[in-house]
């Protein structure tokens, strides 16, 4: 079910009541586990079976791995975990993509191969929970941690509903220990949890869906060359939309977990104030970028095997990260651009990064604007449904061809410009601050007023329970 739905409101009230009822900790955890399965099954009940499969396989693999000393057997066990998780992911998410590309490859060598129709429904959140369970087996394999002692704790770790379908991708070491001892939110946690839920839903319902989505849809849905202003506004709209949508989900998830007494890690830290791409990836989808760093980039050799290899590792990691987002070459190009920018930044920093000049406010602000500009260029490939649209957009955005068609009415021009300016100002102000510190330092009347206003705007926006963008990944 969606956070921005009436079903979730009722569900969460029941979960909260049960969690605060005088039951034993084991019963409360069981309630949370059952609740999490209901949360997931509310989309499509049979999908729960695959969640169980992933849970059971990784539970047994990790336990065997922990006791096994023979390296060959350990590798085989890890292979089973990766095969099951990536196999499910490949089948449901990449099956059609693989077949399409295979067909194209055959055609290129003159073989007329017709792939069967691939009408498989993509499971919500499969990319998230498969990565989460794989991290568990990988941690045990790499001897970073011992397996969980309780199957209930492990099953709850895999299924914990606040972050099940769109993250943050939580590490076993971050969440499983929290299930050991009874947890009920304190009054302060509950209050802050609800504040975060309000902020998250405000981002999603009011900003992403209410103010920005239409401009992005109009621009990326156009089939002709657009006026550069429209192309830029559509891209800026999408940049704001995807941030508010995804960060909105993460903030809501963190708030929901906190209302139950659990702490989930941050997934976003005001990324549009990033100075450079390495800074961007420390602020955008942090749980994915750190997962890719720890389980892909570092095992590939990271930056320990020379410059060339480092650049290659960066590119590989980011291209696979792009593919993780969706079964399309446009996502791969998006990842490749990020990998390329990361590599370029590394090279520039090595050759020109010395001295104090780049540490001054002015140059850093300019670098932040350049980063934001380049991030927007990458978003074009992320959002465009095909390369033709992406190239058309890039062409008009960079050549300022004024002959293109205008599609955005004045209201979208004002909304996108206004939201973008305010969002960038907030990100820059919050760059080195934490939300909880700012909230604590804000006068109570102002905080309460802003909170009440956001809640009111959420209600009167009457969101259509539209799915979060990252659910499709």
């Amino acid at each position, binding site marked *: *079910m969606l956070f921005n*739905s*009436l*079903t*979730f*409101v*009722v569900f969460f009230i029941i979960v909260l009541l049960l969690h605060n009822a005088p039951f034993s900790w084991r019963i409360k955890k069981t309630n949370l586990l059952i609740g999490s399965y209901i949360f997931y*099954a*509310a989309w*499509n*009940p049979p999908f729960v079976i695959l969640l169980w499969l992933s849970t059971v396989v990784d539970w047994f693999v990790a336990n065997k791995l922990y006791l096994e000393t023979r390296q060959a057997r350990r590798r085989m066990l890890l292979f089973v975990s990766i095969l099951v998780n990536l196999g499910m992911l490949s089948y449901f998410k990449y099956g059609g993509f693989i077949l399409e590309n295979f067909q194209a490859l055959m055609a290129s060598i003159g073989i007329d191969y017709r792939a069967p129709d691939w009408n498989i429904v993509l499971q919500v959140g499969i990319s998230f929970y498969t990565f989460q369970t794989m991290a*568990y087996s990988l941690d045990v394999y790499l*001897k*970073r*941690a*011992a*397996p*969980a*002692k309780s199957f209930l704790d492990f099953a709850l770790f895999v299924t914990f509903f606040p972050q099940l379908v769109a993250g943050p991708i939580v590490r*076993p*070491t*971050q969440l*499983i*220990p929290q299930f050991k001892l009874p947890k009920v939110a*304190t009054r*302060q*946690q509950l*209050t802050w949890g609800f*504040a975060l839920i309000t902020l998250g839903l405000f981002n999603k319902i009011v900003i992403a*869906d*209410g*103010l920005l989505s239409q401009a992005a849809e109009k621009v990326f849905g156009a089939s002709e060359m657009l006026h550069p202003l429209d192309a830029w506004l559509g891209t800026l709209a999408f940049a704001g939309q995807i941030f508010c949508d995804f960060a909105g989900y993460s903030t809501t998830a963190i708030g929901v977990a*906190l209302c139950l007494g659990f*702490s989930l890690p941050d997934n976003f830290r005001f990324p549009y104030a990033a100075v450079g791409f390495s800074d961007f990836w420390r602020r955008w989808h942090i749980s994915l970028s750190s997962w890719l760093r720890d389980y892909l980039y570092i095992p590939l050799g990271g930056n320990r095997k020379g410059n060339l290899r480092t650049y290659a590792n960066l590119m590989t990691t980011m291209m696979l990260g792009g593919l993780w987002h969706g079964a399309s070459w446009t996502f791969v190009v998006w990842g490749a651009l990020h990998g390329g920018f990361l590599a370029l930044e590394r090279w520039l920093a090595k050759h020109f990064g010395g001295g104090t000049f780049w540490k001054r406010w002015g140059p850093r602000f300019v670098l932040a604007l350049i980063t934001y500009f380049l991030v927007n260029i990458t978003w074009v490939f992320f959002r465009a449904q095909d390369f033709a649209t992406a190239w058309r957009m890039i062409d008009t955005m960079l050549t300022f061809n004024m002959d293109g068609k205008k599609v*955005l*009415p*004045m*209201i979208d021009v*004002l*909304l996108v410009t206004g939201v973008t300016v305010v969002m960038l100002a907030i990100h820059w102000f919050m760059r080195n601050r*934490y939300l*909880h*510190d700012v*909230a*604590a330092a804000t006068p*109570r009347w102002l*905080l*309460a*007023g802003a*909170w*009440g*206003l956001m*809640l*009111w*705007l959420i*209600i*009167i*926006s*009457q969101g259509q*329970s539209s799915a979060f963008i990252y659910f499709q990944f």
Partner: protein
Amino acid sequence: MSGSKAEPVFERPVPVLGRSAMVALIVTAILMVAWESWVRSEGVTPAYRNSDGQWTEQRRRINNGAGDGWVFTGSSRALFNMQLSIWERLDNRRPLQLALEGTAPVKVMESLADDDNFTGKLLVGVAPGLFFSGYEYRRSALDRYPQESPTQWFGHKVSVLFEPYLAFYNYDFAFPTILRRQPLPARDGVVVDLDVRKLSNMERDRNTRLWDKLVYDEEYRELAKKIWAQNWTPLAELPPPVQEKLLESRQKQLDRATAATRKLQAKGAEVIFVQMPYEGHYAVSEIDIAPRDLTWDVLLEQTGALGLHFQDHEEMQGYYLPEWSHMTAEDADRFTEAFYGLVQRELAAHEAVGGNP
């Protein structure tokens, strides 16, 4: 995870907010009361939302024993003009209302044709510009029925608990919708389509009546007319590829409707097509996009079904259509009563000459 190698368990820092939550709730409550009051001052009264869930719920009733009675489908004219209570009084059974505004009903016909649970009588409203173009403004409702998730089903059940008490809980008064209709200078070269405004009030089973604001508020009525006529171009003046596409759609819709009707007739279901009154801009545009002799007459000839056109029957004439397309609530009552008698009479006559092919 256990073991000493695990990193320290993260605990989220939490600020002390005191009574902020309570004050925030009070602020929200005050703003909500003000907002609800403003919406009511605009003449809005609480009503059920014309949601996809509402349509799906009614569609599902066919699988729960209502499939052998009358079912109405079509576009907004069938939705606003056919009054279920009047029909129920005359027929002793309440029909199902499955019409969807701005939407060609052919997909509904196909769905009912494939559904063994439907064996009753289907009244299909034909708004020529929609029916023969295949435009489906409410496609999301049509898609929802076969794939409604448990969470959507439950969400609808919760929503209908609030709908009859809150005037603001209405698509036309959603905050982004209001923002988007603010009068702003137009950008050169950008064609702006004004969204259709609130036109009706819906009851629990989708019985729908025209909003009386269209009767008493001349400015609002004129706005509605302006929206119907905006950006209209005669078929002959459209670019050739667009003309070609529209003509293709017309043929496709005819073929689909014919196939669905034959399938319905083959299982004993009755299909009656009806064109309800329109005037003003529609008297020009409907005929322009779908001339009667090339569409309506062909449809009836191909299907052998009974067709009732408002131009052919006195019982379907003389009603007040404030914005050229839909009857006032009172006239819809009168129309339904007169139309019921006409349908019974024409059905009997149709059957007397052989009925369905």
